[in-house]
């Protein structure tokens, strides 16, 4: 697995897209901090972007990479290498290079503007952790979609649809059900619904850490009582971890059985 990972990773690191992705984050970080020297405000703005963009790039990039390296994969399959090693190696190559672009692209500008001396360091770390998790989750989901669809167009379509569902439609359904059932106590429901969607969960985790959480009022207080505690925090980390592991297990399962 190590070898495949290494080749995929180096291949990606040298690719144009990684540079574009990295330079986008660099530019974003620098412009943001140049316009507004406040690091904690920067974290809020970044959150808005990361929550939407990281899953999108993860899904698109994941499917794209899978389809583009299909011939290479088929070549590898002819070699005496375990199938799971090939696919997991490629997966970690993609997810790793994307995460690296994210961490470097945002880390460098924030470091240069004195992150370590500010009190936003914890929030920022959380933001990066959440960003890495989102990359891992959505790349894994993208690989799953790609491996099940040999038709590129279909695969892309499903991938974009998945992103759209998680980032937008899910919240729409969530909102509608909150309004429809407003007569009922909704605390537990909204908490569970939030935890089930990695994007919502990430957003809530970061929001609750920031000052802005006071805006959430009573609902925020209920959320804070759960997510604000050690237990809640590790619980949400566990959910994110599950979101990463389950698609990977499925990927391995499908890869082992797929007829290429």
């Amino acid at each position, binding site marked *: 697995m190590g070898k495949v990972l290494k080749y995929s990773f180096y291949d990606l690191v040298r690719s144009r897209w990684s540079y574009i992705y990295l330079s986008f984050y660099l530019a974003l970080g620098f412009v943001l901090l140049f316009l507004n020297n406040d690091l904690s405000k920067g974290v809020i703005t970044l959150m808005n972007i990361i929550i*939407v963009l990281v899953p999108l790039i993860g899904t698109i990039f994941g499917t794209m990479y899978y389809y583009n390296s299909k011939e290479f994969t088929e070549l590898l399959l002819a070699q005496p290498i375990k199938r799971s090693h090939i696919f997991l190696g490629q997966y970690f190559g993609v997810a790793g290079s994307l995460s690296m672009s994210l961490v470097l692209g945002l880390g460098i500008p924030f470091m240069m503007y004195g992150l370590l001396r500010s009190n936003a360091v914890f929030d920022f770390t959380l933001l990066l952790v959440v960003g890495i998790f989102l990359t891992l989750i959505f790349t894994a989901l993208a690989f799953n979609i790609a491996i099940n669809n040999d038709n590129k167009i279909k695969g892309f379509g499903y991938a974009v649809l998945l992103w759209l569902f998680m*980032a*937008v439609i899910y*919240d729409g359904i969530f*909102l509608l059900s909150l309004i429809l059932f407003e007569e009922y106590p909704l605390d537990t429901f909204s908490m569970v619904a939030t935890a089930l969607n990695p994007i*919502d969960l990430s957003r809530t985790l970061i929001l609750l850490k920031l000052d802005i959480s006071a805006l*959430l009022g009573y609902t925020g207080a209920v959320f804070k009582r759960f997510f604000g505690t050690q237990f809640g925090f590790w619980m949400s980390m566990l959910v994110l971890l599950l979101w990463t592991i389950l698609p990977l297990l499925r990927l391995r399962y499908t890869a082992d059985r797929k007829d290429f």
Partner: protein
Amino acid sequence: MVRVSSILACLLFLFFGEAIAETVTICPSCPIKSIKEGISTAQAYDTVLVKKGTYYEHDIVVDKPLTLKGENYPIIDGQKKGEIIKITSDHVTIDGLFVINVGVSYTTDFAAIRVIKSEHFTIQNVVLEKLFFGIYLEKSSHGKVYHNKIIGDAKDEYNSGNGIQLWYSHYVEVSHNHVQGTRDGIYLEFSDNITITKNTSTKNLRYGLHFMFSDNDVYTENVFEGNGAGVAVMFSRNIDMFNNTFKKNWGPSAYGLLLKEINDAKIRNNTFTENTVAISIEGSNRITYKDNDFIKNGWAIRVIGACYTNSFTGNNFMHNSFDVSYNSKLNDNEFRSNYWSNYSGYDLDKDGIGDVPYRPVKLFSYIANRTPETIILLRSLFMDIIDFSEKVSPVFTPDNLKDAQPLMKKRL
């Protein structure tokens, strides 16, 4: 002739009687050692001078026109036994005392200084600590509460009192006081024509300043910071609120200014910074909001219901999460010539007024008002999308709720 001279003598006596007002000095080593004794020996219009020292006394009744003056802040310790100073006469001045340890009771409102049915009183330069109620004016008018410092250590609302309380008191001037750590910093009930200026009210459990059933009052140039809620004005008419600062009243249920059943008020030149809700309005009519600054609040203005004929002009709304939140489709309030930092229109004719109207109510704030749980979707992409579509073509929010002449540059 005899009668004339006797009247003259009487007049002379009255004149000199007042002019040669004597000073009764009290100190731990003087012949008169207690304040109570000092007051009973003093004649009307005398000065009772309390020298530095600690006096363990409570229920001191000032029943004649006196000046009770402290030198170098003598300490009057009530030992938590009850009320400390009670004023029952007109023309009393209390000056420069350090009063501590007021008794706490669940049945009686013990105060450090209570004024009962008296007029023309002055309470100044007094420091109050470890108190239940601070200065309590009861049916007392035409007085002055000036430059006092009240520092409480209230923890719970149910067993703490108010810093300065006015009850059925009119024409009182409350100025330059500092109140912190009490339940309500300054509390007015059934008190009309009160002037409240240049006070600082911070870290109070409930409200920095609280009006109940009080009309024609003015408060200007006060600072309300970090209270449960900055100022609550309830069931009152004709209140003028000018040049005050409301800041950092931040928390899940905190307000800068809470208006409930208020009519005909004027709110001008105030600054609201970093409050969860800068102004929360309920059932308030004919109020003018002019030239206020709303900076970095969660909600700048939250209208809960039944508010008619209010006008918002010349205000700066800058970097608030929500500018205006509204829970009905009906709008009878006017928004005109305000500056909105979220405004994205243009000004082709360069007259400083945006050519496209600004709609301050976001759909999300409307929804969050209806179903508070939905606030958890704050800053999600879905909300941004529907906010945008609502902005383009309003369906849910009142169609006429808009600023037709938004300013391009903020009012300085």
